[in-house]
């Protein structure tokens, strides 16, 4: 049995096997795996006795349920109006320069993925970004360097399991 099948089974035991338990299960898999592979979605469908197409349809609706392989840390930079007015592009450029990836890409070592997202609700502290579930606000290019370095350091120290 693949570990992900076990994870799905555990999640189904925990949340239940009804249609209305689907979203928490999808979220649980994404929390561990960072994305939903085709295999995971088929396994979830089997576990909940749903058509796989229904699982795929639901999963792909939500922007935080990724269905492409993602890095360990997913950076989501807010691109909505206030963040965009307050220098979102400089933040993106700083990240792209530092990690040598474009928006939508993952570093070759699988540590970071860079995405843009819609309003995070920190317009009064713009620009803002999420790294996994952690929020960072009032960003400057320098601050972004420090933040990403702290993640790199964590990674080198053996990747402690936070969020």
């Amino acid at each position: 049995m693949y570990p992900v099948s076990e994870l799905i089974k555990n999640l189904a035991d925990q949340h239940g096997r009804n249609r209305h338990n689907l979203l928490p299960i999808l979220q649980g898999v994404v929390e561990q795996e960072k994305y939903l592979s085709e295999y995971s979605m088929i396994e979830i469908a089997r576990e909940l006795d749903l058509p796989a197409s229904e699982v795929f349809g639901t999963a792909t609706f939500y922007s935080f349920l990724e269905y492409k392989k993602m890095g360990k840390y997913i950076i989501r930079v807010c691109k909505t109006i206030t963040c965009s007015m307050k220098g979102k592009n400089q933040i993106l450029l700083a990240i792209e320069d530092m990690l040598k990836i474009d928006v939508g890409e993952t570093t070759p070592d699988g540590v970071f993925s860079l995405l843009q997202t819609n309003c995070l609700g920190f317009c009064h502290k713009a620009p803002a970004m999420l790294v996994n579930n952690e929020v960072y606000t009032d960003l400057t290019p320098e601050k972004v360097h420090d933040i990403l370095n702290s993640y790199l350091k964590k990674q080198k120290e053996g990747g402690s399991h936070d969020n």
Partner: protein
Amino acid sequence: MTISYQLKRADFIFKNQNDWEEVLSKSLKRTPQDLINELISSELKGRGGAGFPTGLKWKLTSEISESTKYVICNADEGEPGTFKDREILSMVPFKVLTGMAVCGHVIGAKEGYIYLRGEYFFLLPELNKVIREFDYYCKEINFDFTIRVFMGSGAYICGEETALFESMEGKRGEPRNKPPYPSNYGYMGKPTVINNVETLAHTYTIFKYGAKRFYDLGVQYSRGSKLFSVSGDTPKPGIYELELGMSLADFVDEFGDGDTKAVQVGGASGFLVPRKRFNETAIGFQGKLVGISLPTGGSMMLFNSSRSMFNVLDNYLEFFREESCGQCTPCRVGCQQLLKGIKAVKRGEKNTRYLDKLLRLTETMKLTAKCGLGQSVANSFSSIVENFREEMIY
């Protein structure tokens, strides 16, 4: 609506929540009818933006005889420029939980859910702790009501109440046709009261101090205070509780940077008000601004003269294009075409009369889109294009 030519600060929402046990146990001793009357006489209207009278909502749901009902707190705060609900949930969560429990008592529901947007996942540990404490107290006083958190996963449209139910039921967050309304057919097809976070926090004030304290704030048709999320070109961005009914001119006096060109009231789905209209514009319901079924209320974004209104509109349309659920054609195709259209005019590939065609398209969307998202794109589009037409072209 009357305009109150004075900006009045209020301080109810974030005031201490330490007496929640008392407010809860006292309210539970009152009859549902009595509580509904109290709410109705306060004239509290939904603080999510649509402005439906809260007392009436509770009353309608309480009148349906059905053994299973639900109370849902809508914390899917996704409107650009809105961030008040997060602050309420982190500063005074007990007020919200108390509001939900009292609602449960009124309508006869035993289960409540908080639908929390995925972006606010970091609130979850603390919120769950508070809910455990609340649960414990409910058991102690023999009140049968459980609250759980349901996490969203990054979809603006799930703030629309029926899309939110669909999402909780494990489906794509696509809005349903209305009617039936949630008071008859909500989550799992059961009668459901769904209220915004701030609305529930206001019910706490009303049950604690009585309807009059709340009613005395604000102006006719727009009673009470409201949280405003202030951002953009302002020296003091943040969250402020103000009495409803103030004029936009006073608001800009207080929060502007001296060079305010326009204010976006009500987020991307709201209206852009240019400087020449600041004086005649009031912030409240019944006015021609906030409250025309906008998905979220209280977003105030200020723009100064250095901002290009084309960029602002472009940003909004990009937002709507991505967040449209795609189920109805007017919204799905409309948002794409509007975005393509303004870019084409800007690049000089289409003549300027094309803007009028696009305005007619937004009218069609307003009439034919299935839910508030597609219908409200017209708000920001027409208010920006009509007031800043030259910026769209040159």
